[in-house]
């Protein structure tokens, strides 16, 4: 089978299928992942092909899902957990933070927990409360967890396969508003980058836009728009939020001298805070402007009819780009 045009949903589905085929210890578990194929259909068809024992519809209890995934991992399995929506991971948060993240250290390395926690995250799909949150910082702030977020179908496919193959717990944040974006994926090929490498998604010399997951697309569009005004904007797709590929970031900002960080999560104590601090530390003498951040506001994610105001969009990104360039 050659390369094919896949939606991100299909790319993830194919990654799960390949991983299930590659390792009989790999399991998929979560609410409605079986016959229904998940509410976003990411697990579509897997139940039919791999059966009840490997594609596990769990009781409705996220702490239970996470805790039993840990037990299964202790027994040698490789669970891929699906949390139905971002806002429903919190019942599992205790298990994730106190157990999943820390058991390897507690056991002085005798225990490995190769668990992937897939979470559709972020807004922009017109949903009701708890279905649009960006909580990456909670996880990235916890040592012991690795956190990644693909921005496109190709990365979604390869990063999920790499995450599942990883012996560390990986929080895998899927930008749900990009689920239906298309890209050419060749499942028989190989990953272009290691899981935790950032990628320069567009080259430029005037300013670096830093984003991950859902906001990469917005930044690419902003770079396109800025080009019409004669500005060459570089876009770095971070891909991995913990660890962060600071070397790629540093090299980019040293080239451009300016950085604007964009995410949906609130600006206050968001990923941008850490990134801005690191960029400042590493690139101080190259910086022509303070590192700016564009993100959600310090308020609960709003009702869908006003979510466009809350979410960074082309205008807000360009506004920040202009401010940075004006220095």
């Amino acid at each position, binding site marked *: 089978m050659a390369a094919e045009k896949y939606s991100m949903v299909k790319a993830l589905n194919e990654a799960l299928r390949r991983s299930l085929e590659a390792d009989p210890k790999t399991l998929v578990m979560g609410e409605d992942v079986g016959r229904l*194929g998940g*509410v976003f259909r990411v697990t579509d068809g897997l139940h039919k092909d791999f059966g009840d024992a490997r594609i596990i519809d769990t009781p409705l*209890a996220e702490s*239970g899902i996470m805790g039993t995934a840990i037990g299964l991992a202790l027994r040698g399995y490789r669970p891929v957990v699906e949390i139905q929506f971002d*806002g429903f991971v919190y019942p599992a948060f205790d298990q994730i933070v106190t157990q999943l993240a820390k058991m390897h250290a507690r056991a002085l390395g005798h225990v490995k927990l190769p668990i992937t926690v897939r979470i559709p995250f972020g807004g922009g799909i017109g949903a*009701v409360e708890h279905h649009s949150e960006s909580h990456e910082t909670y996880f990235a702030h916890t040592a012991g967890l690795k956190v990644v977020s693909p921005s496109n179908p190709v990365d979604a496919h390869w990063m999920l396969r790499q995450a599942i193959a990883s012996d560390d717990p990986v929080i895998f944040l899927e930008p749900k508003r990009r689920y239906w974006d298309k890209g050419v994926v060749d499942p028989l090929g190989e990953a272009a980058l290691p899981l935790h490498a950032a990628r320069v998604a567009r080259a430029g010399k005037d300013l670096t836009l830093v984003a991950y997951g859902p906001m990469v697309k917005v930044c690419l569009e902003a770079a396109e728009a800025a080009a019409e005004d004669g500005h060459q904007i570089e876009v770095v797709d971070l891909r991995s939020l913990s660890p962060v590929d600071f070397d790629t970031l540093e090299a980019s900002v040293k080239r451009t001298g300016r950085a604007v960080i964009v995410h949906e999560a609130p600006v206050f104590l968001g990923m941008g805070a850490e990134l801005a601090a690191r960029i400042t530390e590493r690139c101080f003498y190259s910086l022509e402007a303070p590192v700016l951040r564009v993100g959600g506001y310090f308020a609960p994610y709003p009702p869908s009819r*006003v979510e466009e105001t809350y979410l960074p969009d082309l205008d807000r990104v360009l506004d920040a780009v*202009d401010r940075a360039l004006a220095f």
Partner: protein
Amino acid sequence: MTVESTAGTATAAVPELVQLLTPEGERVEHPRFSLETTPEELRSIYRDLVLVRRFDGEATSLQRQGELGLWASLLGQEAAQVGSGRAQRPGDWAFPTYREHGVAWCKGVDPLNLLGMFRGVNHGGWDPYEKNFQLYTIVIGSQTLHATGYAMGITKDGTDDAVVAYFGDGASSQGDVNEAFTFASVYNAPVVFFCQNNQWAISEPTERQTRVPLYQRAAGFGFPGVRVDGNDVLACLAVTRWALERARAGEGPTLIEAFTYRMGAHTTSDDPTRYRIANELEEWKLKDPIERVKAYLVREGWADQEFFDAVDAESEQLARRVREGVRNMPDPDPSAIFENVYAEGHALVDEEREEYVAYAASFDGSEEVGEGR
């Protein structure tokens, strides 16, 4: 009525499912639960059932027309909700999930209030103190703990109010729900746990949540559990009343499992043909909660065609009001994002509000932002 506080385990004499009105509309007696109703009350119950179903149907249509982003239909669960809703006194509190439109109706909540969150103009937004109807809770099971805590407060205050906590068969697996059972039991809280077992949690059948009938779970926590025909409004009314009386009398919590069926999709986003067979639906259609009340009213000669026509006309009026109300529901001002984040305000929220207002104003041409834009 005297009922011993057993765990409600079935015996030969006591059928497992409490039923007072058969699907054919025949009034039957139950050894433990009796109910006196006047013809007038029955007509009023019928009216509630019909109006609630009509409201629900209208909301589904409004979603299809793009006026609502989502709708969680209660189709098939009208009796469970109207029965348990009518059993409550005005001072009692209900703690709903996202599907308790019929309970809201019985509590006197304006149905339009329920639609804001489904349209995406707010997250609920009604004042729960107005009708003692808590905001809808989307995170499965959370509200059962709130209900229990509220009930603990009632005990401290020494009043004889009580609380009804609503949740589903799927929710019964959540830690929160099991913790609520524990707290309610230990503090003997005046709370009725009303579980609508509609057989499905999205695509997962109840067997995925439990190996025993859900009402039997109560025994392990130390309070009685009863399974009631959830499509029998009279049984739901009688059993909930009984449980509320127990709560008021200081006898503690009760678990009621209303055995019913989700006749529609989980929500308008769901496609149930992917996971359940049509046969099941056909079987449950024969147990419709409204048809049996109508049959009973007709059989007894307590309602005539004129009455049924009047209720239908009223339900069309309600639908019209809901339709117009939703279409005219204004979008919030975007700066509302910054309102009500804190009771006492917060400097960062204020700062970001100001930033936002200035930024938004830049699009009115009243202020120039950036270069080359």
